């Protein structure tokens, strides 16, 4: 099987998909959670479903009007919990509330819809804009530093080209997940960043296994073997392992997605998409792109590269 026959097509398709995702990011933008914008999210449990305007009306008391809540449209939700019971609730998002203001809002909700007792699942998450900005910049910094360190390590252990192509595959993976979240307008928060970094770790893992094989096979390269043949052979050798590994992990995460509550689902979705895409990129992007680059260099020099890619 010649996987690399259409290597240029893969790269073109990859670049197109990448551009599509960038376009998604630019045109739709990301739906940042309170982690990054500052604000308070209250998930208030209810005994029966309500509508968004009902909740908004309940929060229009004279006291709360004075607070200038900056209320986003309340989002009712429903789910079946682990015991199989149908549960309802509503998510209310406002500006960052200090503890007193938070009590006032919850009291208003309780007055309208009944008490959120101990048996229920009231959740509050509030971040002052004082640190939300810092969280965003730290998250971006984490992504950049992780990328740079990976590039450095790969350049050290393999060669610079492997580092760059590996990094391109990573950017592709990360952008695929970001693009999807922009398209679906799913909320982006600190946990999402953790998911992205996990995807990075996992995807580079797959890519390295391929490059490791190429590195080894180049050492035993025969005189008449072309670079394309060596890489093709290496990818085929590692393909079953990549698919096996990814399948087991994705299945485990898919189970968590099925069983898990709303707060875990987005996290699991990001990882499932990222891991799947990551498996494809390690096969169809990292190796082929490296081959195109390396091959053109060898052609320019007019002789096969010395055996062994360091």
């Amino acid at each position, binding site marked *: 099987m010649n996987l690399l026959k259409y290597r240029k097509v893969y790269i073109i398709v990859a670049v197109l998909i990448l551009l599509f995702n960038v376009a998604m990011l630019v045109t739709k933008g990301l739906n940042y959670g309170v982690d990054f914008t500052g604000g308070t999210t209250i998930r208030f449990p209810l005994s029966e479903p309500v509508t968004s305007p009902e909740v908004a009306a309940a929060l229009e008391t004279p006291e709360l009007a004075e607070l200038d809540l900056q209320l986003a449209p309340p989002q009712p939700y429903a789910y079946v919990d682990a015991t199989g019971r149908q549960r309802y609730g509503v998510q209310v998002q406002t500006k960052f509330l200090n503890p007193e203001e938070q009590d006032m809002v919850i009291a208003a909700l309780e007055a309208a819809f009944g008490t959120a007792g101990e048996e229920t699942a009231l959740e509050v998450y509030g971040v002052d804009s004082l640190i939300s900005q810092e969280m965003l910049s730290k998250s971006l910094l984490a992504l950049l530093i992780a990328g740079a360190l990976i590039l450095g390590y790969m350049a050290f252990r393999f060669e610079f080209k492997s580092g760059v192509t590996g990094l391109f595959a990573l950017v592709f993976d990360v952008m695929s997940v970001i693009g999807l979240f922009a398209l679906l307008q799913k909320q982006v928060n600190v946990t999402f960043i953790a998911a992205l970094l996990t995807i990075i770790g996992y995807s580079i893992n797959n890519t390295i296994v391929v490059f490791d094989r190429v590195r080894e096979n180049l050492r035993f390269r025969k005189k008449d073997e072309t670079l394309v043949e060596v890489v093709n052979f290496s990818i085929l050798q590692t393909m079953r392992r990549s698919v096996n590994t990814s399948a087991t992990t994705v299945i*485990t995460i898919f189970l968590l997605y099925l069983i898990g*509550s709303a707060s875990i689902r987005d996290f699991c979705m990001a990882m499932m998409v990222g891991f799947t895409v990551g498996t494809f990129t390690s096969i169809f992007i990292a190796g082929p792109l490296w081959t195109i680059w390396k091959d053109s260099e060898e052609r320019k020099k007019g002789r096969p590269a010395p055996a062994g890619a360091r």
Partner: protein
Amino acid sequence: MRKDLRWKFWAVIFLVFLCVIFVVLPYYNPTLKRFFFKGQDPVRQGLDLQGGIEVILTPDYRVERRVLTGIMEDLRSAVTSIDVPSPTIRLLGRAEQNRYEGLELVFASREEAERVLRAGVIRPDMTWRSGAEEKKLQLRAEVSTERPEALKVYVSENPKNFPKDALEQAKIIIQNRIDASGLTEPAVWLDDVNQRLQIQLPGITTQEEAERLIRTTGRLNFRLGNRIVMFGNDLTDARAGIDQREGVPVIHFKFGRVGARQFEEITRDHVGEILAIYLDEELLMEPMIREPIPGGEGQITLGRGATLKEAQEYAVLMKSGALPVSLRTIQITQVAPTLGSEIVRQSLLAAGIGLCLVFLFMVVFYGVPGLLADAALVAYGLLVLGIMALFRGVLTLPGVAGFILSIGMAVDANILIFERIKDEIWNGKTMRAALVGGFDRAFTAILDANVTTLIVALVLLVLGTGTVRGFAVTLTIGILASMFTALVVTRVFMEIVVDRNPEILFKRLGGGEVQA
């Protein structure tokens, strides 16, 4: 059996045995639990799994209304000194514990506002005085984005007004307060660099409970008339009791050396006056000074109608109010315990099913070696939990995900090794040689893959906050443990089997399954 194999095998068994004693048994045996973990769970659950309230506090450098009104006139004269007509001045932002962001100066036109800003008459530093009180202030002026003819002047206290270790002191005070409440496993962390105090109150379900412990974070102060004459920093104790002679509730209090001297001076000079006690801007009590109080020890007698309970509440407020700096809440997380336990159930279920699938997969695909890898995976799981317990790591929801991910990586290492051994057998090597060759050849891939993931985990560990850090911790431990189990444990198991009966391994790995 080969000699080195024997001791390696027993070393592995011993390690696993240790982990079982350390991690699994304490769940069933309270004595062990007390012995190893002071009665807590071996692997502590994070707030998101256990339920509870977490807040992050930071020093509140914003200033009170009285300070702002105090500097209003200074600003006005500074502005008029460069021939700009006097602006309308009002408070900026909304009151929060009677503190405001600063002042807003509204001019007649945009030009005037910009002229004032350019002239630099609003100095970045200012000092505000009232009686014995003095505050160094920091000012920052900018043109309002909503109203170009207005200047926003942000006013905050200079952090130098407070002792350097103010936050450290605050931490100790809050820690004591929480410890006295008898909560299980509360935690207070200080991030000195970013000036943050992170407080976790697991198991607490309502804001009211948390309120008592964390919200009364104001600064205790004593006032004569409307002037602050003393702060409560040096208050070492405040306790409620019943006065023996009069039978009314009282509060005994005690100052440290510096506070005692200050308090003596004040009480000596102002006998017969009211010494009001405030927490920030909130009036607590208005006792009268009956006589000079030397030595820093005295008592406040509450009125006839007061109960002992009231006295206790005041005592708690006084003591808790003795924070060297006011704090403001900048992050709140509240998770219902029922929700947390639901998530734990879900994750355990998912992890359990996932593990079973992985185990099955390994046996179906790789036969006896797969079974050995499964045994190694069990050892791996125990090892990770053991290390978590040893370092008192906290398991959060993303932490569970990190754990699942590292299981994936542990399996991956095994798959890599087995595929390599297959290749070696395919190349015509004997089972024993193939085993050695397979492990050797898989090593570089395993190393490189794990090191890069480790890099990501460490970046998260350094830059991450809260739950993300929990994820990084389990991921780091998981990666290291997975390398150990794949390269050492699986290998020992396999070598023992090869030593005894190479045929079993050979059949599946070499025979039917190999593909080109």
